[in-house]
């Protein structure tokens, strides 16, 4: 069984590398080609023309969907060749966060502890700490479901957080809570000519 670790073995290297990734469905580009390199503590925003494109872009970065062209590497693992290893390093927060009851939240932590093969008690403690810290930030109560989604996603001790269309203030709160965590957030671009990936903190390769 693995332990929940906060130290990041990728601190000196790239956590996420996206090279000309593009996602095509029915002959149409749902995600236009974009590249991004992210190290520990860096944050990026992926701007997409619509919510559905942002949804696909988030899943691309989280190694949940495979790029039609290009490559996505998390840590040392290619999302197409070693998806399970890549996903082990990623905490993915869907748009709605986690909307279940407190009891379901506890059950979900147990389920994730089993799937990620980490100690259940340690993961429960970790999720509780993250949630308590997020609830202390001046986020609106409406974002509580999203905060619970973040707690679930980060509790297994991941190195990359991918936030799908996070509510306002969440990205900043997470950066304050886990400054060493590489974070990608998707957003719907107001300006359709905007670049697909915007680095918010750190340096672009």
């Amino acid at each position, binding site marked *: *069984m693995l332990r929940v670790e906060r130290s990041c073995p990728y601190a000196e290297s790239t956590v996420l590398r996206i090279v000309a990734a593009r996602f095509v*469905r029915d002959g149409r580009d*749902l995600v236009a080609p974009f590249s991004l390199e992210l190290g520990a503590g860096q944050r990026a925003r992926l701007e997409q023309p619509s919510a*559905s494109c942002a*949804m*696909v872009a988030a*899943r691309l970065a*989280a190694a*949940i*969907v*495979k790029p039609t062209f290009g490559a996505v590497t998390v840590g040392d693992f290619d999302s197409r060749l070693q*998806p*399970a*290893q890549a*996903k*082990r390093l*990623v905490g*993915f927060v*869907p748009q709605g966060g986690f909307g279940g009851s407190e009891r379901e939240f506890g059950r979900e932590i*147990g*389920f*994730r502890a*089993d*799937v*990620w*093969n980490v100690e259940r008690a340690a993961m429960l403690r970790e999720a509780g700490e993250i949630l308590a810290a997020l609830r202390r930030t001046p986020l609106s109560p409406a974002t509580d479901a999203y905060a619970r989604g973040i707690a679930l996603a980060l509790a297994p001790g991941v190195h990359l957080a991918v936030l799908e269309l996070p509510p306002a203030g969440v990205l900043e709160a997470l950066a304050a809570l886990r400054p060493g965590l590489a974070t990608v957030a998707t957003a719907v671009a107001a300006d359709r000519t905007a670049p697909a990936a915007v680095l918010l903190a750190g340096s672009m390769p």
Partner: protein
Amino acid sequence: MNGTRATLAIVRREMDSPWLARLCVGLIAGFGLGILSSPSGAFEDHLTAALAALWFAVGGTLRVDMRDGMYFAAPLYGRQLARAHALVALAGAFALPLGATLGWALRGAPGNELAPGGFAVTLFCAAALSAVVALSATPRCGGARAVYALLAVGAGAVTLIPYFTGLRDAPFAGLAAALLLGFFGLRAFGETLARYDPIG
């Protein structure tokens, strides 16, 4: 990664209250069919039990929500997910045949069904194969989903043919067909999940 721990976690998650309720319905329905059937092992009674078992197996499996994004965000291989869901689908599909078997045992004169060459083994094989093949319909929608559901019923029907045509050693022929087709069905489902992109 600990595959067994993850597999059991998925199985527990899928065997929720509605699943258990369907299991009870299957057991009761099967028991009713078994106890009300003719002790002489009439063709119509066996055909009714077979159709009910196929319908129950395919219908129950189609309720699986493979598009639950959590499974695809987790560090799981397609084959792990496929195995875990197959265990749940098989357990669910066995409810009706198990209930029928209990009904036949309590009805008296169970030789037509529970003897080594009887109908019970064939019924279990048909339900199991239908459930495994129907799993491939769960990540799909529209026409493709309907085609896979029909394929599942057809695959189950294949295992029933030896029995209903009066073939000697029919249960063993049914078992062989179920094992062979079930292996390929499960493998195809695992590959589908490995390639699947959950984008709604």
